């Protein structure tokens, strides 16, 4: 804990420090921690941060992808052109964010609209990945809303992939650990905004407290409505308790047209059942079977072989008469 502590960031538009600063959040700010029975409550509530992506200002330039690769030192492969602009073709363990392009003809105006959405972790308030994760401390959530993967604790099982309602986490085939956007927790910790928000040329991506971002979104939505987008709105899905990455959409009534942004994302009931009821009922059932056996073993009489049985066996083998099988068994 050396050096002064940087204050909480309220914008991404600033130059990072080069002197050592103490992180302004850490272990003591955990509000959730994967596969951890009892977690001490954090003593302070950090102001929730949020990244706002205004799809109407996004020019699809992929600066966020470049900045993300550079800041996180990842190494996405040089693939091939598959007839689309998305490269790489999907989020990968080396590509935490991705521009997704949709050519959509607006039925009302019959004008082409090129809907471009920056895909990546939504940093949900109720993270499905964390809920599904079996490895203690592999996924953590801080009180400022950041959901981070701690690769050191990750066991590479892929449960988070099943838990996430947005299909974001990716498992590396190289080190079998899960990777996703970290909301640049290392930058936020020293009072900076995420690298993508810093780089975004048109500031379609902005960063600050969640409240500020909502106010900013209101302004953007008003502007969009003035330009004829009656259904412009904020995408902050309640199904996952709201997210710390939000969108301003021209057509907030139809999120699906933006490369299948889920209409009403929530943690799948299958995952809820799997990590909830199945676990507890399962443990109970197994516990009961084990205890039941032990109790029965103690109190119930053991099923021993009697002397008479051994004698009959010997008679049978020696050909001496033995009690015949009972009639009803004859039908055997």
């Amino acid at each position, binding site marked *: 804990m050396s050096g002064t502590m940087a204050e909480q960031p309220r914008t991404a538009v600033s130059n990072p420090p080069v002197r050592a600063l103490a992180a302004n959040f850490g272990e003591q700010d955990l509000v959730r921690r994967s596969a951890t029975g009892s977690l001490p409550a954090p003593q302070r509530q950090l102001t929730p941060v949020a990244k706002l992506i205004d799809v109407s200002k*996004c020019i699809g330039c992929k600066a966020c992808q470049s900045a993300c690769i550079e800041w996180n030192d990842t190494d996405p492969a*040089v693939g091939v052109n598959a007839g689309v602009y998305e490269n790489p073709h999907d989020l990968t363990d080396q590509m935490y964010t991705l521009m997704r392009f949709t050519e959509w003809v607006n039925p009302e105006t019959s004008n082409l609209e090129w809907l471009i959405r920056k895909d990546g972790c939504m940093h949900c308030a109720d993270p499905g990945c964390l809920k599904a994760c079996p490895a203690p401390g592999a996924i953590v959530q801080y009180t400022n809303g950041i959901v981070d993967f701690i690769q050191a604790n990750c066991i590479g099982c892929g449960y988070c992939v099943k838990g996430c309602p947005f299909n974001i986490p990716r498992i590396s085939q190289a080190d079998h650990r899960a990777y996703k956007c970290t909301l640049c927790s290392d930058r936020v910790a020293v009072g900076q905004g995420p690298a993508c928000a810093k780089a975004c040329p048109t*500031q379609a991506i902005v960063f600050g407290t969640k409240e500020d971002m909502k106010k900013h979104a209101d302004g953007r939505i008003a*502007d969009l409505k003035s330009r004829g987008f009656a259904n412009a709105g904020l995408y902050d899905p309640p199904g996952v308790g709201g997210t710390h990455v939000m969108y301003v959409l021209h057509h907030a009534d139809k999120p699906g047209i933006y490369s299948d942004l889920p209409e009403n994302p929530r943690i799948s009931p299958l995952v809820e059942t799997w990590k909830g009821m199945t676990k507890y009922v399962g443990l109970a059932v197994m516990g009961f079977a084990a205890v039941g056996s032990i109790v029965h073993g103690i109190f119930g009489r053991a099923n021993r072989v009697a002397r008479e049985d051994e004698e009959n066996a010997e008679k049978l083998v020696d050909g001496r008469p033995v009690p015949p099988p009972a009639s009803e068994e004859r039908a055997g």
Partner: protein
Amino acid sequence: MTNSWTDIRNTDLVVVMGGNAAEAHPCGFKWVTEAKAHRGAKLIVVDPRFTRTASVADFYAPIRQGTDIAFLLGVINHCIRNDRVQWEYTKAFTNASFIVKEGFGYSDGLFTGYDEEKRDYDRTNWDYEIGEDGFARVDPTLQHPRCVWNLLKQHVAVYTPEMVQRICGTPQDKFLRVAQMISECSTPTRTMTSMYALGWTQHSHGSQNIRAMAMLQLILGNIGVRGGGMNALRGHSNIQGLTDLGLMSHLLTGYLNMPTEQEVDYATYMQSRQFRPLRPGQTSYWQNYSKFFVSLQKAMWGDAARAENDWCYDYISKLDVPSYDILRMFELMNQGRVNGYICQGFNPLMAFPDRGKCTAALSKLKFLVTMDPLETETARFWENHGEFNDVNPASIRTEVIQLPTTCFAEDEGSLTNSGRWLQWFWPAATPPGEARKDIWIMSQIFLRMRELYRKEGGAFPDPILNLSWNYHDPNEPEAEELAKEINGRALVDLTDPADPSRVLVPAGKQVVNFSQLRDDGSTMCGCWIYSGCFNEAGNNMARRGTEDPDGTGAYLNWTFAWPLNRRTLYNRASADLQGKPWDPSRKLLEWNGTQWTGYDVPDIGPTSRPDQVMPFIMNQEGSARLFSRGMMRDGPFPAHMEPFESPVPNVLNPRMRGNPVARIFQSDVPRFGNSEEFPFAATTYRLTEHFHYWTKHNKVNAALQPEFFVEISHELAAMRGITGGGWVRVWSKRGSVKAKAVVTRRIQPLNCDGGRVVHVVGIPIHWGFTGAAKKGHSANTLSPFVGDANIETPGFKAFLVNIEPTTPPGVVS
């Protein structure tokens, strides 16, 4: 740019046409989204493709590539007929009222004086009538039939909305919507900015594209105002600087010109450069030409340049042709008349048209020197890379010397951005291996040649031996020394002509700016328009003050802008004839009764009265030119001209092919295709993820766009049985390439004249056979070897191709 990047925040309407700002200049384009967000500005995009700029536009209109002039003259026609003209601005600040000589006329797509053999015009009649007083005759009431305004009205009348649809393929309703939105900017309180780039320049009539928009902006009163202007988005970090510093065949520094063979001596040379004002009381600042020329000569050859030898006038080559531009050089090279070629950066094998011709030309060189931080295809043009560079090294006798240079992170100096800001930067990394700075390499070549000339003599050694080279270390002049040389200094004590006892600038001291330069050899200055960049106040290019009063976006204390740190050119035109700003909410300058005040360095004499001295101080007229006299080879007004390879004949004159005065080399005539053999209209362009042929060396950018592709509409794909993501062959008269196919709704077939459907094929340019990205063909394999009539910029934007599905490269079908 006439304005600057940060000025765009002040605009009400952005027209991105002839460019793709969001993809080619994303961080500059921020100011468009800022204007939209904070001023409610609107963005219009007119382009053959629905680009990523269009994705955030308020309105998009398709257009066939090569027909921008018809579209823009259509808009001018619309503005004039609907009385949407900033009259006070147009009457005072343009040459609308000037009267043109008899004998000037226009019909069937041609102006008077056309000579088909010489492919040139006799331009003597393209001028004003000069009165006895020696000034141009004007008719302020604009009634005279031959005043410029009436000639313009008559000239644009043919470009009705129907004609625009026939030529451009733009549906009338979309054209009229654009024209209506633009015409709203004729009021003093609504300004429009034009952001364009190679989409307009890379045509055989490129200069006229820009003329058309400049004229439109003039009649709307949008030049010299905040949020207005003609903003050319330069492509490279210092392409503006290298052009300002005269690194062109026909230029010296500061846009002085190289002499021609007819200008046998300095007096003859200066005779056509008197630039006497054509209207009383006008500034016509080029009258100071000799001060800048002599100061340059003193900077080049120091004491050797004296009045007696015409300031070493003969040390400069005299041209026998308009210019030895890159097309002429590669034509000569292909004829075996060029032995050596030096590429300081640049990658001509990828960047020049008709790659087949370029490879043949380079193969005839005796020696080729390349200086680059990266591997380039040019340096390896002799290397066989299978289908991607199918040559036989043994048959190529060129000796190639590849020199490693530093890049921006390992160098120090200044770059001039699109907004004419000279910005200093500092090094932060050690060059790899033995890479050296360009300055060191050029100095070494010069010093060694000078040594050879000292020892052995040779052809005309004088300029070489006398070139001024007094630096701390002649082997590697420092950036600051060179910057001071560019700024210029006094060679002797400069005294006040009115009071000789007062010394204005002591000998050896830097001049404060070009106003102190003299033509008597008492001052030296490398580039007069840059003077002021490094004066006695220090390195103004390194200033970092972020003050911006009234949010104009001028940032006068941030670095240095040429000329004289002025941020918006012609800014006097932001005020009316009483000196009051047209739009008080966006004031730039204001006349306070005795002098001009405001938020920018006035582009006018500080005490020039608003009702007398007009804003366009570089022009002899003092006013801007709707009618450009004989200065443009292809006409004083823009007129629609089809590309040389066009899918449709020229509606105005079917016999006319391309630009009638564009230079064509004989060897290229058989290499033009026609629309029967090549039915589809192609255009080449950049993607935002790549920078020309550099970023294919960068693994990150290569991952974002890994492989060469072409873009076609669903209709064309269906017609040719092409599937998205599959391989296609695209070929023109000059060559054939293979690429992946991107099938998209962002390209639509265009319904042009006589029911012809024109299909567009989009071809990005970023792949070659070096670097981290997938090896690929290059777009310039297909493009025609013809340039703009005035400046020879190659026509990459409009030519004809054919397309069909095929097998992957290297796989014989």
